[in-house]
């Protein structure tokens, strides 16, 4: 977990942050999400040794129970359960989402998908043998097709959705880039990132972070007052996070620019908040296995 903490602490100032690591971390965190399974075994006692938020078990053959994804995948591998398709992974629902994403009037991301939809669906589909030939799918004894109805359709739909969403993110960033340099006087409008998936965020986060950091460097130029020329970057960073309002006033006095910096903070939110949340979650999952 030290990986999680170190990456979130220096998130915006670490030049060599490893995106591969971020994705691995996100996949790991997604394994905490609750999914429904249909066990093929009975085990009456609840699983006390797994200290999770939700209680797990008891298991009864043929009766659906909720377990974390990682346990579900493990049981599925041992052929001890069938996975139940989550509601949002239903073909009808996915078609709705696709329609929403395709709608040119609609700027927002569909809210019908969970935050970690990409990780969960990938894990489930892989466990059920999507994308493999029929021979391989039957390798573990159970054919995934009966667990996830129209598995290939689901897979293709998810792929389309993620493509469309990436295009939307691109449009958003283009919009941002258009307004970022337009004027220093007017506040910068924000973009809505509600409903964006965690993997999608990871895909654009390094770029956005770098872009905002450099953008801020340029904005900051010429504003320094005498002694602040020697200000170490750490102090600047704390000022950015902490007393944002104060800083904006400071900038106002110079008459150079107004709330651009403030808005930037607002826009940074989706990317900047992300790792903190993960740190907490990471701590939780660490506790679980102690």
């Amino acid at each position, binding site marked *: 977990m030290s990986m999680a903490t170190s990456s979130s602490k220096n998130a915006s100032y670490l030049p060599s942050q*490893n995106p591969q690591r971020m994705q691995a971390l996100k996949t*790991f965190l997604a394994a905490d999400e609750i999914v429904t399974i249909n066990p093929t075994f009975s085990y009456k006692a609840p699983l006390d040794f797994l200290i999770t938020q939700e209680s797990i078990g008891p298991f009864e053959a043929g009766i659906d129970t909720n377990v974390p994804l990682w346990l579900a995948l493990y049981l599925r591998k041992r052929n001890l359960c069938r996975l139940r398709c989550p509601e949002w992974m239903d073909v009808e629902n996915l078609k709705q989402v696709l329609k929403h994403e395709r709608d040119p009037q609609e700027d927002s991301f569909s809210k019908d998908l969970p935050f970690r939809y990409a990780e969960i669906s*990938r894990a489930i589909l892989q466990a059920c043998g999507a994308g493999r030939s029929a021979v391989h799918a039957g390798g573990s004894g159970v054919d995934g097709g009966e667990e996830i109805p129209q598995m290939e359709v689901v897979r293709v739909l998810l792929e389309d959705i993620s493509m469309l969403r990436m295009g939307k993110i691109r449009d958003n960033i283009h919009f941002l880039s258009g307004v970022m340099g337009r004027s220093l006087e007017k506040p910068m409008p924000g973009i809505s990132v509600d409903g964006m998936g965690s993997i999608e965020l*990871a*895909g654009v986060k390094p*770029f956005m972070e770098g872009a905002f950091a450099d953008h801020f460097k340029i904005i900051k130029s010429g504003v*320094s007052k*005498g002694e602040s020329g020697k200000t170490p970057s750490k102090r600047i960073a704390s000022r950015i996070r902490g007393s944002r309002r104060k800083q904006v006033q400071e900038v106002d006095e110079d008459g150079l620019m107004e709330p651009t910096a403030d808005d930037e903070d607002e826009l940074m939110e989706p990317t900047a908040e992300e790792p903190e949340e993960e740190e907490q979650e990471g701590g939780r999952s660490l506790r679980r296995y102690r």
Partner: protein
Amino acid sequence: MSGSYYDIDEILAEEELIPVTNTLDFRHLAHLDPDYTHPTTTVQKAGKKRDLEEGTKFKMPIWSIQKWSQLGWLNVQLPKHFGRKAREKLDADPVSVDLRKRNERFYMSGISLVNLLQKQSQSLSRGKATQNNIIQKLKRESQQLKQCLLKTFTGARMRRIFDWTLSHIEDDVSAYTKKLTEMEQRLFERGALASHSLMLWKLYGTRRIHVSESALRSRILGNNVNTPGQKQSEEKRNAGKRTVSPEALPSKRIRAQ
């Protein structure tokens, strides 16, 4: 000027040569201007040749003139590629301009220049020795330059870089990126790495996580005493332990109980 003292990019960016005019005679400093020939060389004694007369135009790097410009000993002009014409060109078509040809660290130098002008105007206004219009001019220039930098960096250039990070994952992009400044290239590399690993994740899921570069570096630094052979074998032994995959984890978790 805002980053660390040891920021290598800043040090390199401040190498940018600035055309300056001295406002007073510089005694014994004629070597600052290699092309300088004293107007009255033939008449003067040998010692006088080393003086730089008032009003000479010569070029100095940014880092060297910070104090002098604040004291008002120098009048600073903008280099050609930061001047008004160049800025107009950048405004008109930021994408096609080859910024790297002018200065590898165009933005960093620009930032240093803005700081320089701003500081100069501040200290001059404090000193009250000069006219108001010079200070106003300095302020205006620095603001315009800053606005131009901001517009160029965040505008169409950035949009194009972002599109490249998304689409040209496995192509040879050196033809595109060679026109970018250092700052933009770094941005591109970060973005491209992220979208590349996103693509890999979609294909293969979580795979083996490599040892972080900084960890490796610190290990190499820390184990200086060891022979290289020892280090290698150690790394080989540890290599197997660094595998993390979602499929493998659950079984480990349960066994650990």
